[in-house]
């Protein structure tokens, strides 16, 4: 156990944890940021996606020691009051079903649009392929990303 300092959602947090602990457990169990989810534990489903310096990272198998210098953003910190264009588009298109993977979907989509404001269908596939949705909401994920690209603005 060590006292670790992390920058999460714009705040500096101090937690007691082993540096090898995976970021997901620190966020969820120590900091109460339960938006990122545990689902596979091997970085194959993307339900645990968070941003570190704007890039998505699967928090389930990332040791917390690797991200101590970064700015960590979880779904809870993506926007105030859920007004990020991707979140708004997700509601407009009524994307989520069970909702469990959707934090990962949204974080991944936000990253895509930040680097590629007008992605093609193939680019959406290539980027979003990392996040699995068992309810198979993919048809609406594509629609929502297109909508966010169109309506997102800044």
């Amino acid at each position: 156990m060590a006292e670790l300092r992390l920058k999460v959602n714009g705040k500096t947090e101090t937690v007691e944890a082993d540096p090898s602990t995976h970021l997901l457990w620190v966020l969820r169990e120590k900091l109460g940021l339960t938006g990122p989810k545990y689902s596979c534990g091997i970085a194959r489903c993307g339900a645990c996606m968070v941003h570190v310096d704007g890039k998505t990272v699967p928090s389930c198998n990332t040791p917390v020691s690797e991200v101590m210098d970064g700015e960590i953003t979880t779904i809870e910190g993506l926007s105030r009051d859920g007004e990020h264009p991707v979140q708004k588009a997700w509601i407009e298109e009524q994307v989520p079903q069970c909702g469990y993977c959707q934090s990962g979907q949204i974080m991944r989509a936000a990253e895509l649009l930040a680097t590629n404001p007008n992605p093609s269908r193939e680019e959406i596939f290539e980027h979003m392929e990392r996040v699995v949705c068992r309810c198979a909401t993919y048809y609406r994920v594509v629609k929502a990303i297109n909508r966010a690209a169109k309506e997102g603005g800044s």
Partner: protein
Amino acid sequence: MSENNTEKKNISRRGFLAASGGVTFAVAAYAVAPRFGFVESAETVEEVTEQAISAWVRIDTTGRITIYNPSAEMGQGSMTALPLIFAEEMDADWKDVVIEQSPIEPAVYGSVMFGNSRRMITVGSRAVSGYFDSLRIAGAQVRRMLITSAAGEMKVPASELTTEPGAVVHKKSGKRLTFGEIAGTMTVPDAPPNVVPSQLKDPKDFRLIGKEHVPRMDIPSKTDGSAQFAVDVRLPGMVYAVISRSLVHGAKAKLTNESAVAGMKGVLKVVPMNQGIGVIAETIEAALDAKGALKIDWSGGDSKGYNSQEWLSKYAAEAAKTDGGRALENKGDADSAIRHATRKYSADYLNDHVVHAQMEPLNAVVSVAKDGKSAEVWAGSQAPDGARNAAAAVLGISREKVKFNQMYLGGGFGRRSTSDYVEEAAELAKHVDRPLKLMWTREDDITYGMMRPASLQRMEAGVDREGKVVAWKHTIVGTGGGLLTSGSDTQFYSIPNQKIERKDIEHGIRTKHWRAVGHGPNKFAIEAFIDEIAHGENKNPYMLRRELMADFPRAIKVLDTAAEMSGWDKPSKEGRAKGIAFAERSGSLCAGVVELSLEDFRIRVHRIWCALDAGIVVQPDNVRAQSEGSMLMALSTILHESITYKDGAVEQSNFDDYHLLRIDDTPELIDINLIPSTEHPSGVGEAALPFMGGAVSNALFALTGKRFRHMPFTPERVRAVLGETP
């Protein structure tokens, strides 16, 4: 949650429970903005007076209307749809409505199913269809009570009053009382007024049911991380538990390094259990580390020796045996009719095991009171009353002493209608005097999963001289008993001689309802076989179905709609082909056309057209969402999913070797047409799933001239069917 809020919540709950007896009402100081599940917003709103009008609704003086949802919300949207039905007849203004999870009181909130008992169980796409009538009546009763109360207040005859959304109005005088105003003063009668179905709204007057503008209530919380699943529950002092379960179902565990594991940092208890070894620790990481360190000798096991792919190849011999079948349908004399038929057809269809793999691995939180006499449970369950009762039984206390907190379900698909994970959590919680969260890992979820049965479907048919299908035989072989049966009947195809039977082979594995249950495998076989018969008879497969459905205009309408939407008669562009299929599920009728191509040996589905008759549709956009999800979840099993057993153990363990459909398999178009109807609603959570297997297989035949009879159609199998060696 502050103590103050807890107390207020309890006041409200006591008052409510009194009201649920139908004899009194409560005035509750309710100052917590309620949210679905456990976590309540700490934001305190102004003190308001709130009245429980019936077991289903509370109204406060600001006009806020809180309606209870009795179903499990696992992504299918019933949490919104059920209160919407109630609100329609109550004439509530939807913007005033807040939805809260109902208490676990099956006598009050259950729906009648399985005979006469009331159960709180969300299965078989039955939530809307099962609650539709009773919630309409209950909503209309509240509307009537509000009118009666307003009549007294306004001093006018109740017969001169009507309602507008959220208010009772007296047109003659222009007087108007909002529901909130009425709630502040009304006296709830001892018994609810009698309302009969003929007094309900004419469907043409619906303002909420069937309208496009009503979004699901749960969705905003599922876009900002605030939706609470059981796995998100954190309690002061909570400990974490995991279990190492046998890979061979039923094997017994002997731990050989107990003291080493018990001495690991953070480990609190090592608990031998029937299904394996449980570990309780201070943190989830410590629990997982300890699980990894367990050295266990496993012995025996019910499924020992089961090799699934070998068995699948033996099922054909089982199907050929004349004895040992359990008759599911026996009409006319199918055997004789086939013997005398002009042309005979037969084919075997196979499907591998698949597993639920819901995104939220199973988990539950149990907190036992210090004196051991009461407990609280947090879980996402499709059967919350069953789960509560199971926890009570494990803890040796009465069910009334267990408070069950229903949470959002991170996927159900049939897996969460059993309570094994809640029982496990309760059993482990007995070993500590702190709240306990049991978590399954993804590996636990897959290796100790409850599978959709692998099965063989032997199809045989006879056609007479005029080209009429006169005989039909369908023999199902597999493990899982009744799970194999659903969807094997061909109720919309009139064939005079029919024999459907099931041959049960016991493998000692765990099987379970999986979305649409037997309909996936059975409709795949039926619809692909119909296509084979059509081809053999030189008939258009759409027209052959139409012919067989002659007695069922609703089914014909669905089939015609799908054919028309897809431009069935027009050929697809070069390199693509279409397949058609029809299937009914949970009372809904569905037909679809799939257009696909092959890219090397990988199937690419480009477009799906689907027509669905589900009776009255409560939330059209949600029904489309459910249908899109059903079709793509079906596609996942058709293209990718396969669980195999070797010597009784599941060979896959995580998403690296159990492949779920990903976004790059999404078709360019999914076009869904909901057939307008005034019939009673039927199920929509699974209806668009079963037709897909047949439609894909039939499109592949149209494209390649080869029959695809073994799901999933992985690239390796496609290559094999096409006779190409790697």
